[in-house]
């Protein structure tokens, strides 16, 4: 009896070994796939950023593989869900670099996570294409680290330019106590003097806040002419509700973090008239047909919306830009030499993405200009261009 079991076990082991050997041989005759890692906050507090990014990457990788891959090789996408936690991001980055030996990492979703793995990627010569906004990710420049969302400072400048047009001089600033909010606060404070804007009050609120009437009461008491809210948390739609409930009928400006129609839905009627800077993806339909980004934007938007049955957001667009810039660079440089790919990204000019037209250079690892932002507003529950 015993010997029969041993025999069975031997046969199973042999079969497995043969299978492994055969698959190994097959791999050698074919070209290895290109491994691309992605660290995204698919679930957790920043999931409304990370989930569309993950969906976008899955869709793009499939599209490229179905079309025969890039440089004759398939893309193998390895997605890790960091839940917006910097510690998770660090351990995933180590895994992707040391075990999976990826060519490049896309993400992380949030600024805090991106900063946490910036040095790690630089030291290990792994390309990082961050989908997060904070300017510190690419300033100072690290040769292997890039980012695709528009810079915070441009958002602040755009907001101030609009305020100048409206004759607004005295404002209140409220931000969340997350990396994005605090980064925005710094940019707003930095650019206020040169635009003749006085920040009468700055309040930092907790990112899990449920009701912000107390904060806004304090702001209202200062007699400000407009409020700027800078956050990526649900407070973005609590602020407008509370302002209206407090009878604050002054303009509300928000950051580019507002570029997700779900926030408009959650804020309902209170969202009407919010002004914010954003990439053109949300207004792809109304762009003039000769706009250089029109084709890219409508294709991505239609692909995404027909596949996932939900509205495309600018955040998915950042993942699109990161991924497509990488593919473009691999096409130019071939897949085997990371240094060549890096240099191809660094010298990429005129790449049309969802965030704008990228002109990267060794001193600018973002590559977008001030005009990559458009001022948008909410009208009848939809995003429209602000005039």
């Amino acid at each position, binding site marked *: 009896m015993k010997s029969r079991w041993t025999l069975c076990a031997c046969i199973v082991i042999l079969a497995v070994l043969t299978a492994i050997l055969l698959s190994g041989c097959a791999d050698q005759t074919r070209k290895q796939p290109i491994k691309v890692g992605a660290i995204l906050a698919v679930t957790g507090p920043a999931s409304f950023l990370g989930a569309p990014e993950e969906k976008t990457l899955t869709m793009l990788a499939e599209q490229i593989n179905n079309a025969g891959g890039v440089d004759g090789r398939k893309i193998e996408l390895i997605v890790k869900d960091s839940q917006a936690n910097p510690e998770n991001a660090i351990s995933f980055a180590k895994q992707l670099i040391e075990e999976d030996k990826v060519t490049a990492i896309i993400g992380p979703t949030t600024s805090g996570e991106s900063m946490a793995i910036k040095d790690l990627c630089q030291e290990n010569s792994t390309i990082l294409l961050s989908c997060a906004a904070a300017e510190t990710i690419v300033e100072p420049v690290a040769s292997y680290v890039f980012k695709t969302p528009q810079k915070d400072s441009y958002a602040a400048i755009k907001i101030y330019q609009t305020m100048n047009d409206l004759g607004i001089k005295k404002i209140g600033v409220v931000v969340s106590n997350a990396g994005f909010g605090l980064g925005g606060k710094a940019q707003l404070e930095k650019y206020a003097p040169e635009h003749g804007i006085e920040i009468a009050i700055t309040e930092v609120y907790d990112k899990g806040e449920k009701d912000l009437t107390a904060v806004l009461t304090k702001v209202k008491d200062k007699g400000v002419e407009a409020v700027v809210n800078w956050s990526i948390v*649900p407070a973005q*739609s609590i602020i407008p509700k509370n302002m209206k409930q407090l009878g604050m009928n002054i303009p509300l400006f928000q950051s580019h973090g507002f570029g997700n129609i779900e926030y408009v839905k959650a804020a309902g009627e209170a969202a009407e008239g919010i002004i914010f800077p954003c990439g053109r993806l949300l207004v792809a339909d109304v762009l003039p047909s000769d706009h250089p980004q029109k084709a890219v934007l409508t294709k991505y938007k239609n692909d995404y919306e027909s596949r996932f049955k939900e509205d495309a957001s600018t955040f998915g667009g950042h993942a699109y830009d990161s991924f497509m810039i990488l593919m473009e660079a691999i096409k130019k440089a071939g897949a085997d030499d990371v240094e060549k790919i890096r240099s191809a990204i660094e010298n990429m000019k005129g790449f049309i993405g969802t965030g704008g037209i990228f002109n990267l250079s060794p001193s600018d690892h973002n590559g977008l200009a001030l005009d990559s932002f458009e001022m948008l507003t909410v009208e009848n529950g939809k995003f429209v261009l602000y005039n």
Partner: protein
Amino acid sequence: MSFEIFLQYCFSGITLGSIYAVVAIGFNIIYNTTGIINFAQGEFVVLGALCAITFSRLLIPVLPFALAMSIAVILAVVITTFIGGLIEIVFIKWINNPTVLRLVIITIGLSFLLRETSLHVWDEKVRALKYFTGTEVSSISLLGAHFSPQVLWVLGVTAVIVIGLGLFFRLTLTGRAMRACAASSNAARLCGINIKMMVTISFMISAAIGALAGCVTSPITQTQYNMGSSLAIKGFVVAILGGLGNSFAAVGAGLILGLLESFSIVLLPNAYRDVVAIIILLGILFFKPSGLFAKKEESALKEF
């Protein structure tokens, strides 16, 4: 500080406090029967709100608004109650020697389970139930200060729950039996009370209250699958602050915490507001562990 501003901080505090209180009441029910803290209470709140949002989106286009909302809320409460009961039967009933620590760990596990399940059933998006009366922009103005009509709904529903529970525990046989279980489970068993049944009922009631709390607060707080734990922490602080097991005390403690948090912003940046809650909790645990409104002798009998 002008009177208007003072009043505005008061309203803001009442808004927060009523949200905390209605969450805290759910903790008290299970505590009253089992002597444990159900850490999945926050998830019941989220579950109720998410169900109501889904049903309301389905029903509002086809039915008059008030009817659609009532049906949505009732369905959400019924479903959550059912899930509460089911969870107790599947995960807790079979335990022969239910020590407090064991049950606490199980409820923490359940909160993870419920959170991940709601992520899969719904998704990661932020949703909000429609305001029961008026819209996102309507507000009631009183002596120059403003608040949302939804706050009245939260206060009203909290009052109804507290009074209803008070009557239930004092007047009905089931209610009395549940209190007997809490006082001494052995004595209750000797009197012929089906303790396991009482525990199931207490989970169902607290799930129902959690769901109702989720429905009335969702327009203000909005709802996302992972909001349960932060709501539960504040609710827990309030339950301890008032004195565990006492729903009237929970309302008082909720309002006190809400007002203190709201006025703390005069002195501190808003981001430090949670510090207020923690300091209060520590203070209470040091100086009056029985809670603000509980008697010392009474709390000496409690297990926790």
